């Protein structure tokens, strides 16, 4: 009898021990989930939404903005309350744009609710709209100082910044010819933003910032323009896709180069320029290669977050193509002096890659959870990063 009890006890002990080992082996998330929020999905006008979303980080008071194309209104709502707190009618502007500008992109910068800037890249005009939706000032964009550049509307990041009576506009140099590999050197020997004084009715761009890293002129990576963010001090931070450093500009002066390398970053593979018409090669390169993407500034904690997408095999062991949103990614966290303080890996099975990656809020970082295909709501986790 004693022996039987002993056997049972031993088995129980072994079971507890095994469970404890298994539990320790299980990969833990490098953060704590504070809260889960679910918000009903809304119908947005697709292309215009991209531009508006990109400005959300600038408002950073737990408010998101979106454009209601049907009713021609710009709505602001609180993320956590899911209620519209302000609506700005944009009838005047929208009618103007519909008539003159066939482009669906609507780059804008929301400095505050009463100063919202829109750029018309066809007619080269910058508008400022107030809370009532009225155009209270407009500037002509000088065509001479901008003649070598396109306004970068296709950037998934901010196109305009307004700070201390200066306007910064994202640009791309016109020189690239995808059939001639010699031309890319010229394209990347260029700034990515032009700067103009706003005191006059015509914006003349005599200054610039955000120059591409020098090695981009000799090594081709099929790079997108950089991701940028603006901080409390009006500094613009540039993150280039294949550069471990980030670059900090105060107006047109480069004031800091900081090491913001991911621990998962190895040598970046170059893009074979001769294959730039081969869509299969291009798609493989874009989906599978490692790269830095968005950079955010958190007004609440005074930290900077840089996203790194890890390299991924094109096919899994079952010979099925790996899906882009399941690419592993991490967030590199920098303090106010741009010193790297932490890098957290995000499990794409729980938090797949999406356009915004995450949003800094007053309650913590807001990460979009994996969605069921037919789900009517988006669910988010608010996470607290463990800095110890």
């Amino acid at each position, binding site marked *: 009898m004693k022996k039987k009890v002993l056997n049972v006890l031993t088995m129980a002990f072994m079971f507890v021990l095994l469970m404890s080992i298994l539990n320790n082996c299980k990969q833990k998330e490098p953060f704590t989930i504070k809260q889960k929020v679910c918000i009903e999905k809304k119908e947005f006008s697709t292309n215009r939404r991209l531009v508006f979303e990109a400005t959300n980080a600038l408002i950073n008071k737990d408010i998101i903005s979106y454009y209601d194309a049907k009713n021609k209104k710009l709505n602001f709502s609180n993320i956590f309350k899911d209620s519209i707190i302000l609506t700005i009618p944009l009838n005047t502007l929208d009618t103007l744009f519909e008539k003159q500008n066939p482009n669906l992109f609507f780059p804008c910068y929301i400095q505050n609710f009463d100063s919202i800037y829109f750029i018309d890249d066809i007619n080269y005009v910058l508008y400022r709209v107030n809370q009532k939706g009225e155009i209270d000032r407009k500037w002509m964009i000088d065509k001479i100082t901008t003649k070598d550049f396109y306004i970068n509307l296709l950037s998934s990041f901010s196109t305009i910044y307004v700070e201390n009576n200066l306007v910064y506009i994202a640009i791309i140099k016109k020189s690239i010819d995808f059939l001639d590999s010699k031309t890319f050197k010229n394209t990347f020997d260029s700034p990515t933003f032009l700067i103009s004084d706003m005191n006059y009715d015509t914006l003349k761009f005599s200054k610039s910032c955000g120059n591409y890293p020098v090695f981009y002129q000799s090594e081709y990576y099929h790079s997108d323009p950089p991701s940028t963010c603006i901080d409390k001090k009006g500094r613009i931070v540039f993150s280039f896709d294949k550069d471990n450093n980030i670059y900090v500009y105060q107006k047109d002066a480069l004031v800091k180069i900081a090491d913001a390398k991911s621990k998962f970053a190895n040598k970046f593979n170059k893009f074979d320029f001769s294959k730039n018409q*081969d*869509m*299969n090669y291009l*798609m493989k390169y874009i989906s599978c290669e490692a790269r830095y993407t968005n950079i955010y500034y958190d007004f609440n904690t005074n930290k900077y977050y840089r996203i790194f997408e890890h390299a991924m095999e094109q096919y899994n062991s079952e*010979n*099925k*193509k790996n*899906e882009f949103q399941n690419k592993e990614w991490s967030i590199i966290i920098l303090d106010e002096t741009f010193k790297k303080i932490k890098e957290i890996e995000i499990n794409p099975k729980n938090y797949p890659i999406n356009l915004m990656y995450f949003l800094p809020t007053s309650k913590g970082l807001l990460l979009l959870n994996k969605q069921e295909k037919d789900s009517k709501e988006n669910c988010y986790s608010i996470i607290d990063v463990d800095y110890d």
Partner: protein
Amino acid sequence: MIRKRIVLGISLLCFSILACKSKPYSKETKQFNQYLQEQFGLSLKDNKQTYILIAKNGCMGCMQKYLMYISQSVNAENIKHLIFISSNNIIVSEELANKVKIYQDNKGELDRLLIDVVNVVLVETENKRIDTIRHLQLCDTLKIRGYLK
């Protein structure tokens, strides 16, 4: 005696190389056939067929152009041998959708196949096997009519 051994050795080596070398597209054929069965209850046939695979991802402008040429090339003769599969629910024009039956892949499994479906891909099959895979490029648009003959 030595010569015999050498000949035997070379023969064995050639045989091993030939045996090891699998037929072209064998992996792709197996996976594609399984995909057709699981998703649509179809299978590869003995007679010549061309599968037109329309991906979810790619260059939208290019895809529209390819599909426009494909739509113009469909006729009473070749339509019997063409099978359209799409995981993209916005790119197919009404004109094409009215002309041919399009198998819709809502799960996007098409985009994960070894065939590497990007933009529009033409897969020619015969004797239950994949013969040719054509990843259409912009310079191919004028050849599309010929491919679909």
